[in-house]
């Protein structure tokens, strides 16, 4: 049993604390973050803030080429879904409009569509998840990305939530 008498929103507060390092990295990175190789979820170009979030709990991270991006679900979403048992991956070349499903995540309790944060064309789904859907629970914001897409217009990312705004949005829930 947990010794901590948790508040009514245990997730939000836990996710909150998990997010803090991310924010930290982001603020120092333009100066110190080069070269970067190891931690892909934190990688970003020196000039752009390339990892963005949606209110529906997806993240999108633009690669250094400024054209392709990976899409996944957030830590908060993975935690909330619980034990993920199946991930439906998109077919190669599927064209998606922002807000359309680019996959689905199934836990025992529920099915949730993964909505593409921006418009683009699917390059590939993350095949690791075919064999090991539970990986979503372990590494939702890094290795367990769901789709890689060719982004139609990288400027579409501008309207999405940054880490801070996303963090605030889940704190409200």
């Amino acid at each position: 049993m947990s010794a901590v008498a948790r508040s009514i929103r245990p997730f939000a507060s836990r996710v909150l604390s998990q997010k803090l390092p991310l924010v930290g990295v982001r603020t120092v990175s333009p100066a110190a973050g080069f070269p970067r190789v190891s931690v892909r979820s934190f990688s970003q170009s020196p000039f752009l803030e390339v990892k963005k979030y949606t209110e529906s709990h997806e993240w999108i991270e633009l690669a250094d080429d400024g054209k392709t991006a990976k899409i996944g679900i957030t830590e908060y979403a993975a935690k909330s879904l619980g034990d993920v048992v199946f991930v439906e991956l998109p077919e190669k070349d599927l064209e998606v409009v922002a807000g359309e499903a680019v996959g689905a995540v199934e836990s025992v309790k529920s099915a949730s569509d993964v909505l593409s944060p921006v418009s683009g064309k699917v390059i590939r789904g993350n095949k690791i998840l075919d064999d090991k859907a539970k990986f979503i629970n372990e590494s939702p914001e890094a290795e367990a990305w769901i789709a890689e897409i060719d982004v139609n217009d990288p400027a579409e990312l501008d309207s999405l939530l940054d880490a801070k705004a996303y963090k605030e949005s889940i704190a409200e829930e």
Partner: protein
Amino acid sequence: MSAVPPLRRGINLLGLRSLSQSASITANGSTLLPRQHRGLHTPPAVRPFLRVSALPSHGGVRFASSPASSEPLRQTPLYELHLAQGAKMVPFAGFSMALQYSDLSHVESHKWTREKASLFDVSHMVQHQLSGPGALELLMKVTPSSLDKLGHNQSTLSCLLEQGTGGIVDDTVITRRTDDSFYFVTNAGRRDEDLAFLEAEISAYKHAHGADSIKWEILEDRALVALQGPLAAEVLQSYIHGNGPETDLRTLYFGNCRSLYLTLPDGSRTPHPLLISRTGYTGEDGFEISIPTEGAPSLPAQVTELLTNHDQVRLAGLAARDSLRLEAGMCLYGHDISTAQTPPGASLGWIVGKDRRDPATATFNGASTILPQLASPAKTLSQRRVGFTVEKGSPAREGAVVVDLNDESRTPIGVITSGLPSPSLDGTNIAMGYVKQGLHKKGTEVGVLVRNKLRKATVVGMPWVESKFYRGKA
């Protein structure tokens, strides 16, 4: 204290009415319609991914549209205890209920129940007492059960039936306490409908037989918890107070109840006896324990703490309750059954008492509809409730449409009413639903549309996990 914002709290984790699937009923194969139901273009108050509960409260549709959903949520006597144990609380049937607890995931909690024992707070359910010289007659009008054949402290699963149609108003477990007094439990999500139904039936009865013919009481001051799992009896036995023969749970069989005291940690007995019924909603051996609170408001929490302090017992929430009952092939009102079905229409014909099937003497509500259905189901029933297993991949959940595999037009031949990957069967996709009469035989292969993709499914018998009710030597 942070109140629960009713419609923002919680997450659609039991989301059997999940977005894309319920949409696909109307979509019928169109790829366009489901899109309108989700995504970024929904109103900002709704988070599509973690959308707040359209939790499968009993009586789904009603719940969603009911004014009750905008009223403050009610709390059970164990509310504070849930919070202290890290429960994720969700709105359910007008109550703030625990979905799961921080110590175990849904799947872990499910498996814990199948292997050890779990305690569920089900105090939201409505407990009734009906007594008086007319109690038996009234209950035998509103249900098709042979309640007159029940011994004292014996119970049976039954259904409240609408007059005329025989539609299922609610499912209920009825216990005969004495010749003319009954204890029964109905669904929280059907509270308003059940009370209106019973009020009307009882008033009519009293009008004909006198005001003293029946006394009906809703036991608002009682909590209800369920201790379920293979270790439930051993655990509960260790807390039973006293040592007379009645304290031996080995002689308390499935479908029977007894009033017993528990021993509190200080050695004293509980201030009230608890009504302990050997029954449950998981398919495991177990008990439902009705706890009076008169003069002892903390008794439900004391009993819960007592039982959960045992190292083989954990608290479990609605998430595990739903997956456990589905594996056991049990219906959830508002999803698998509704007023649109009679008991035979819902493959619950067995609840109609064997000696109540003679059309000449049957007087229960809907008998003239129900008896022909029992006599010649193939002629009278258009569809049947069955189990399905669905091929590996996306599970078929509530609302998924069942189609003929060979029919290109994908005309619906049925619908899934509950479904999920079974935690006990290593994630095998199981589902309950209705399919056209004639296609309901075990082994029949059908298709199910999940997000507009055709998935193969097979009609199978239920339950998926064999029930382990304690029936003594038989």
